[in-house]
């Protein structure tokens, strides 16, 4: 798996464990279905991998205790994760949001705009689409017609905000 954010490839600080007995003191990622057990096991930091068909409200009780939420993209063309990320940010989630699945570089700016921080792609995809292609994809369209999507300094500038200023 290749993990990258807007600055490029990065190591994954989270590990999967055989049993939650191994969790204490570690940064552990587990399935969202096991979130209660994971949190009870006392990891240093907790992360979950969630399917994209959950209700954002399902995450609400855990948001301030999860350092990372990874949302699975079963295919590149299934865009539910984009809306789910947007809703999680609206609920006030401050941790890391990861898009996990066979996305391709042209979707990287879309993922970031919707609130994701990073993407994790299968090795086979990464072999065809190395990090340089992902970073290049961020700079192709530098403007957007939507107002409050882009996060951070590298997102496209809102045409509406520019017009409002002029």
């Amino acid at each position: 798996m290749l993990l990258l954010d807007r600055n490029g490839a990065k190591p994954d600080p989270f590990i999967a464990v055989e049993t939650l007995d191994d969790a204490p003191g570690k940064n552990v990622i587990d399935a969202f279905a096991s979130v209660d057990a994971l949190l009870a096991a006392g990891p240093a930091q907790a992360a979950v991998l969630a399917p994209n068909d959950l209700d954002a409200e399902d995450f609400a009780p855990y948001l301030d205790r999860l350092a990372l939420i990874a949302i699975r993209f079963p295919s590149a063309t299934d865009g539910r994760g984009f809306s789910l990320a947007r809703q999680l940010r609206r609920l006030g989630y401050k941790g890391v949001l990861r898009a996990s699945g066979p996305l391709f570089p042209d979707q990287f700016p879309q993922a970031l705009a919707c609130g994701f921080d990073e993407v994790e792609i299968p090795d086979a995809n990464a072999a065809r689409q190395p990090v340089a292609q992902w970073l290049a994809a961020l700079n192709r369209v530098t403007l957007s017609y939507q107002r409050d999507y882009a996060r951070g300094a590298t997102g496209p500038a809102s045409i509406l905000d520019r017009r409002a200023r002029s």
Partner: protein
Amino acid sequence: MYAYDELDRQIVRERVAQFASQVERRLDGSLTEEEFRPLRLKNGVYLQLHAYMLRVAIPYGGLSSRQLRQLALIAEKYDRGYGHFTTRTNIQFNWPKLREIPAILGLLADVDMHAIQTSGNCIRNTTTDCFAGAAFDEIEDPRPTAEWIRQWSTLHPEFDWLGRKFKIAVTATQQDRAVLRGHDVGVRIVRNAAGETGYRLYVGGGLGRTPMEGKLVRDFLPRAELLGYLEAILRVYNLEGRRDNKFKARIKILVHEIGLEAFRAQVEAEYSKVVAAAPAPDLREFERITASFDAPDFADLPEVSRKLEQAQAADPDLAQFVARNLFRHKKKGYVALTISLKSIGGAPGDATAEQMRAVADLAEQFSFDQVRVSYKQNLVLPHVRRDDVPEIFAVLKAQGLATPNVDLITDIICCPGLDYCALATARSIPLAQTLSRHFADPDKQKEIGELSIKISGCINACAHHHIANIGILGLEKSGGESYQITIGGDPGDQYALGELLGPGLPASAVPEAIDRVIGVYLDARRQGETFIETYRRLGVTPFKAAFKEIADAVA
């Protein structure tokens, strides 16, 4: 017309470069064919039966003379000298080469045009009344609202990977001329009791293999809230719409399966969160767009044109054209003039480069530089002086564009069908041509009166056959082409889906079957009744009986 600013231009240029990069990465193997396919579709590039096809966006059907001339140039240089106007008010070029498409996109960008989101599972071209800004009966010009939606929906980062395509139409009149209830979302501009202008929203309409009528989801939405409410609808659809079966992935199926009340509750709940999270909506951008659409500098003219009346008296062809192809304008002394792309025996919606240039010249000289494309696959000069109609008619006649058949039986809507389309199950254009010739006699057409025929070459219903007075659906049946006929459909305020008359017929039997159907109408109609009115009064039974004689004869 809306005028692009530098920011609108920049985003189109950047999108062209992005597409060029996508093509490059497909060619070097970075993108698989499966990955590339939705990317090329989102930029209007289809792989058809014989060639690539490029669908160019014509937002809400509006073109300037300069833009239409550029389309003529592209038709000449990169196609076989013609283009095809569609029921989504776009234009398709059927014969471009893949390697030439970036050059075509460059030519389009030169005139503030593009192919963005003309296909793919995203928000498509927003359409409206072809008489927008001219119609006597509109509350206001619907184009600023359509442009507002166009911008909001362009390259939207969240709604680019929907379960299926998403189509929005806007109208501002009581009489629906934009097939509002046949769209994923229909936006009707209305005034409430307090005199405020806002929107009435319909959701879940559509044709295709499961035709449905759009349902009222919000009776009145204050203007400033439109984009926030659309965001809520799209988010609910993106999250809840089915992903397991592409034939059940349109929003109409979601609304149907969970029910309108549950759907509305979800949208309203999502919308209340959108409102709580976002800064208060404002109308600055809407007002900027509206100012860009400022009304042409109309002259004060008398209601009646003596010049036109005299010319009509001298020329029965002109008189017939005036009777059929003019629409009442909001400004005295002006009309909106429809240029029929349904010449007798022609391919519906096709225009040659030379014809496009002639229309562009007419628009420049006589219609404030404006041309519209209608969903009925005709062109419109929206602001024409009555005095100028004879001169315009003469030019149109010389170009083979003066067919006086608007809304008559030969004004046939027709998809490209099996002559071009990879999805088609039967040809549609040859049947349209046959029927057009069959009913060519102007007196016969006049006698029959207003009647719509729409021919789709497959179940996807690009020609809207379900909502035709007489709808024809071409299917493949044991190796041959078979045509099912429905009657009684209506695209407007009395929105109705047609009823199937019986088994499919071979193309050769269709004209006679339609003769029989029309025979029932002509025998039974009361004074002043149109075909659809007689049908509503009689019901389908007598038509079925007449149809059966033909069906039995060919069975």
